[in-house]
């Protein structure tokens, strides 16, 4: 190349659970470059000790989320040209989660909360976990099916959890993704654990803790609306409260 390659100025948080600091890197700017491409360049060409996590590179697996210039994002589908400010990028690990090293966070607390919110499908016809005798027919036009469909594409990337202020204020809060999962199951007519699930998501660390700041909805890379799902859970618990509880 005759002319000098334009360079991106990239700040990356380096450290571990004990603490860390920002490190500076220069990365050649390329056309159609994603933020994940930038991180991969640093790890392969500049400093092989950089820890980060990715798998599919096409927005399916939900493992490459990081905080990019202050906002949590899926890095594999985020073009540098969309987020760089004057050729500068600032990359940090997801907030609200323990850091393992550099850009890799421990996702265990995030997924533990899915379990706490009863995020496991429990077939009505086969409570013992066996396979039901026949296929369930769930017409696509029904309201419940549509409510479930609206939230079912979650890839578990943790972007909503990282962007949520309520999680930051109350570490026990189940968070947008786990509650969104619960809402899809509450709307699943094949599921038999509605009552237990609603009990699991009620209370101080459940859906009632949400202040509807809607950061989850604003940041979700899949365009899901966890805030709306949480509002749905609140409604499901509110009205039966006048009639002696959830059935």
């Amino acid at each position: 190349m005759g002319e000098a390659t334009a360079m991106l100025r990239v700040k990356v948080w380096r450290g571990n659970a004990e603490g860390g600091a920002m490190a500076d890197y220069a990365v050649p700017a390329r056309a159609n470059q994603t933020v994940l491409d930038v991180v991969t360049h640093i790890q392969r060409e500049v400093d092989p000790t950089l820890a980060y996590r990715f798998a599919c590179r096409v927005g399916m697996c939900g493992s490459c989320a990081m905080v990019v210039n202050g906002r949590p994002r899926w890095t594999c589908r985020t073009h540098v040209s969309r987020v760089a400010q004057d050729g500068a990028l600032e990359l940090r690990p997801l907030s609200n989660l323990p850091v393992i090293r550099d850009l890799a966070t421990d996702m265990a607390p995030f997924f533990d909360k899915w379990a706490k919110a009863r995020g496991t499908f429990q077939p009505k016809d086969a409570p013992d976990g066996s396979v039901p005798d026949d296929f369930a027919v769930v017409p696509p036009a029904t309201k419940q099916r549509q409510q479930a469909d609206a939230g079912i594409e979650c890839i578990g990337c943790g972007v909503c959890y990282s962007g949520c202020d309520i999680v930051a204020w109350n570490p026990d809060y189940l968070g947008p993704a786990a509650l969104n999962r619960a809402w899809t199951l509450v709307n699943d007519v094949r599921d038999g654990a509605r009552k237990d699930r609603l009990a699991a998501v009620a209370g101080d660390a459940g859906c009632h803790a949400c202040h509807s700041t809607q950061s989850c909805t604003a940041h979700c890379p899949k365009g899901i609306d966890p805030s709306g799902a949480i509002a749905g859970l609140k409604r499901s618990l509110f009205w039966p409260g006048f009639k002696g509880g959830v059935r």
Partner: protein
Amino acid sequence: MSDWRRRSHPAWIAFLVHRLSGLALALFLPVHFWALGQAIQGEAALEGFLRWSDNPVLKVAETVLVILLAAHLAGGLRVLALEFLGWRAQQKTMVAASAGVAFAAGLLFLLNLGA
């Protein structure tokens, strides 16, 4: 990590306005009751207070108060619509409409001052 950049979207700003206006109104409420309480001291006490409150600085403060009240009301209705009616779409528009209602109420109050 409290990074404000992740909060720079309309719904979060609406949340902040709702919270701050609520706090400001809660702080104002005792003053409001104290002012009403002047009536118990007799007509003259209340009248004296009302005369004193005619000064321009207090009128500006009153206008701000009206805007805060309208913002809190409109913002509260927006949250109720979101949570009870499930109005999930068009949140940006609803935030903008709430802000519009608040400023319209303030403007109406200001226009009425001269009357």
